[in-house]
């Protein structure tokens, strides 16, 4: 763990918040953070360099939240798609619950996604977003330091691929 400190960013701030909680759940077992180092030079808030898995977690949460927001907005604008999309919302909630544990995660104000007026195009947008999320999960699986964290991410990617198949998307490629 590097001893240098750097200014707080939103993503790493979220990660630091989660680290302690997820370490308790065992998912990120072994991830620890050094205590903040003083920075007399400018007095700005500093935090320790986050664990690599904590940074990965922040990336996954960002992608998961963006995808969830898009699915929710699509469901709201096109109620006729709700039957097909509600299982996605449910599985996103289940995945986030595992990533959150009991943590109180501070989130940025949600960006309201733009949803096309034509249902078919809106559904295509959901498929693309879900496919991006699967790719992020797969990349993070390979990069994770913790084996248990990697296993959870791989399982989430497999789950979303199942949902894409049911949705009739083309994101089933492993």
């Amino acid at each position: 763990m590097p001893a240098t400190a750097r200014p707080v960013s939103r993503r790493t701030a979220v990660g630091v918040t989660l680290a302690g909680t997820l370490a308790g759940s065992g998912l990120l077992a072994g991830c620890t953070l050094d205590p903040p180092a003083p920075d007399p030079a400018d007095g700005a808030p500093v935090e320790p360099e986050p664990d690599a898995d904590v940074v990965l977690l922040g990336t996954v949460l960002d992608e998961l939240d963006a995808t969830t927001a898009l699915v929710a907005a699509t469901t709201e604008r096109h109620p006729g798609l709700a039957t097909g999309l509600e299982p996605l919302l449910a599985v996103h909630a289940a995945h986030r619950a595992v990533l959150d544990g009991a943590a109180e995660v501070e989130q940025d104000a949600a960006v309201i996604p733009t949803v096309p007026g034509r249902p078919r195009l809106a559904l295509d947008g959901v498929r693309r977003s879900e496919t991006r999320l699967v790719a992020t999960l797969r990349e993070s699986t390979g990069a994770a330091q913790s084996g248990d964290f990697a296993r959870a991410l791989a399982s989430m990617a497999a789950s979303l691929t199942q949902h894409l198949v049911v949705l009739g998307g083309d994101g089933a490629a492993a």
Partner: protein
Amino acid sequence: MTALDALQATLSAEHAALHLYGLYGGRTSQSADPALFEALQDGYRVHRARRDQLRLMVADLGGEPVAAGAAYDEPAGLRGPARVAREALGTEQACAETYAALVAQTSGRQRRWGATALTEAAVLQLRLGGRPEAFPGAPELG
């Protein structure tokens, strides 16, 4: 458990899966249940390929690939396409758990192999009558 141990455990599971898929295919009519027959045939091919890949991966690490068992427990009363599909689904779910464990116990190329196998197993489950799960291969997370 070392990466070699994890690969050997996965290879053992592939031997068992191959045996069972052969059994399932033998109890399924290609003309009466073409979709199930095709899914079982695809499953057999995929598991055979994975077995061969795992043998090489074990050998690459200096191990002696475990051999198939002399005998395996076979499901009793395996009659009718619904029963065959249910048993095959159970086999695929068990394989998914093995692949997920491999992901946890390895890194690099071996982990990527396990993650790909996990996703493929999850998708094959849908063809065997399964429904999307929140955590394929890791049901205790749900």
